[in-house]
């Protein structure tokens, strides 16, 4: 039987698209989110389409104290853990409301880092496993228009890089996924440029492919690797004057 795949943030469009892509390959799926029983529709759909086992797991990314028990109590034991937890927030509002800003930082960095820390220890002890972290191109350089979200994702990207380095010799693989624009509920209503915007299904397929090929860092769509290379290359004295 194929390894069960645990999706943290199992309600998100990206998490579900990755779940479908793994399920299509015959992997049992474990969806974890708050109010997990509310995911029955999505779970049933997954199991009917792909004829795989689907289980629902109660999980709160911000309830750090529950993470240790959550990870050790997982049944079945997942072979792949995908963290698609995230919160975009509203940059302008979050600039004024530090509590809201902290929530964005905790949702995109602290919570994911905490739960993946426990997963990493479990996988290291077992000597196998794959961790997939959904970070963002926003973490590649802080920009005035979304630096709170971006800073948290930058932290998460660095965390994943560190985990990968630590676990490379222990049989555990870590994949960092940096989506650019993705057409999801999170971005609905934004006027995104079509050539730069991936469909969630496209991202799901790219993640499965990257896991199979043991890739380290992927951008979706790949053109984002180039775009972000250019954005990173702009000298700071100039960059600070741009509106990006």
């Amino acid at each position, binding site marked *: 039987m194929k390894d069960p795949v645990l999706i943290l943030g199992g309600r998100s469009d990206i998490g579900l698209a990755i779940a479908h892509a793994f399920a299509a390959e015959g992997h049992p799926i474990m969806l974890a989110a708050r109010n997990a029983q509310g995911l029955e*529709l*999505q779970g*049933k*759909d997954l199991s*009917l*389409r792909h*004829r795989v086992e689907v289980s629902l797991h109660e999980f709160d990314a911000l309830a750090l104290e529950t993470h240790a028990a959550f990870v050790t109590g997982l049944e079945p034991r997942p072979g792949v853990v995908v963290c698609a937890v995230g919160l975009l927030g509203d940059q302008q509002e979050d600039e004024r409301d530090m509590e809201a800003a902290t929530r964005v930082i905790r949702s995109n960095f602290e919570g994911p880092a905490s739960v993946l820390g426990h997963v990493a220890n479990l996988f290291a002890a077992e000597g196998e496993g794959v961790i997939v972290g959904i970070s963002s191109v926003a973490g590649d350089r802080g920009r005035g228009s979304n630096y709170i979200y971006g800073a948290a994702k930058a932290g998460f990207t660095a965390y994943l890089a560190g985990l990968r380095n630590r676990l490379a010799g222990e049989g555990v693989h870590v994949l960092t996924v940096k989506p650019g624009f993705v057409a999801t509920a999170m971005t*609905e209503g934004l006027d995104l440029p079509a050539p730069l915007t991936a469909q969630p299904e496209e991202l799901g397929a790219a993640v499965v492919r990257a896991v199979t090929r043991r890739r380290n860092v992927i951008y979706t769509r790949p053109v984002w690797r180039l775009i972000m290379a250019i954005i990173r290359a702009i000298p700071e004295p100039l960059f600070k004057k741009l509106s990006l």
Partner: protein
Amino acid sequence: MSRPLSGWGRYPRITPETLSRPRSEVAVAEAMARGPLIARGNGRSYGDSALSEGQVLDMTGFRHILGFDPETGLVEAEAGVLLGDLIAAFLPLGFFPFVTPGTKLVTLGGAIASDVHGKNHLRDGSFGHHLAWIEIMTAEGEVLRCTKASNSGLFQQTIGGMGLTGVILRAGLYLRPVETGWIAQDMRPARDLAEAMAIFEEAAADADGPTYSVAWFDCLGQGETLGRSLVMLGDHARLEQLEPRRRARPFVTPEKRRLNVPLDAPGLALNRYTLRAFNGLYYRAGARKAGPSLVDWDSYFYPLDAIANWNRIYGRRGFAQFQCVLPLAGARAGLETLLAAISEAGQGSFLAVLKRLGPDTTAHSFPMEGYTLALDFPVTPTALALLDRLDRITLDHGGRFYLAKDSRLKAQTLHAADPRLTTLSETRRAEGWDSRFASAQSRRLQL
């Protein structure tokens, strides 16, 4: 910031004032409170059935399969689920839709609203005949489950109702048990219309005859080759018809190569000479494959799905599809008149499609007992003039028109051809549905 939308024919293009993609009943109700709307599925109707200058509701967010009973073949799903999704999920268990149009990329909701038909209308009726129930958000904003027995009026009106009776949210659909994913095809070249119709009639007269029948048609033939066609008869292959090596995995068919049309073809690419050459080649290639063969389901039912964006081949201006049905008695004379008019105008499509339809039992769906002819024309002034002429001929022969294909019919012509749709528009006014549900097409055709 809305962008223009179009149907599959890419004509007309209309920018809706509001476009939203609800994922819950609450969101649908909120949209209805904002003003009149039309639900849209995957945008595969050809004309303006799912367009509006006002509000368009993209129902593809309703995308979950809800349940399946292998005992009865009943699948329950949300309206935005594609027919192709159902095939992918349930063909491996031995089930296939009873009725499918020429693309699997239509949504369940769209298939119900257009009450689509396939190559087996004579045997199995239209899509709506295989529905156990439909859940609709009504003009009052209430979610109603409709079946043949309860809320049967709304059930019948919604099948083929073009989304003008309510928003289809979910449905229960019976699937057909099949033994394999293959179709046993019998390809019969026909030299002219009479020969093609004789093959159809022979098949129709035999109660144990083929489930599927369709003719691909050269509508640019002249004189002797007028109506030259390839008639394809087909049945779901039984297990013992497969080669022994395929019997262990009867639902596995070879992965098809996907092609794409990345750009609009220049306007000159399609003219009477290239089309005539193409149609001639197609006929001769088909005639060489005459006789029985096994074809995988995807190639048999959905040859054009393998070419993504094939609608671009008609260029930037888009194309208009013409589809009418003529009653059996005068079908031969009517078809000959239609084909003569098309050939004379030198306008034509790659291929025209001719099918034999069975008797109709629905409130206002397209099919009736007789022959249906479908063809595409690039949108040009000449073609539009020809289409008006074809409307006239259809009307004169007692025929009617398929709304899922239409983008340019005149209200007067439609109501003259199909009084059932006049009844629908009266019902809409009496029930107040017209103030809730409206499309560019319903306004143009006064539905």
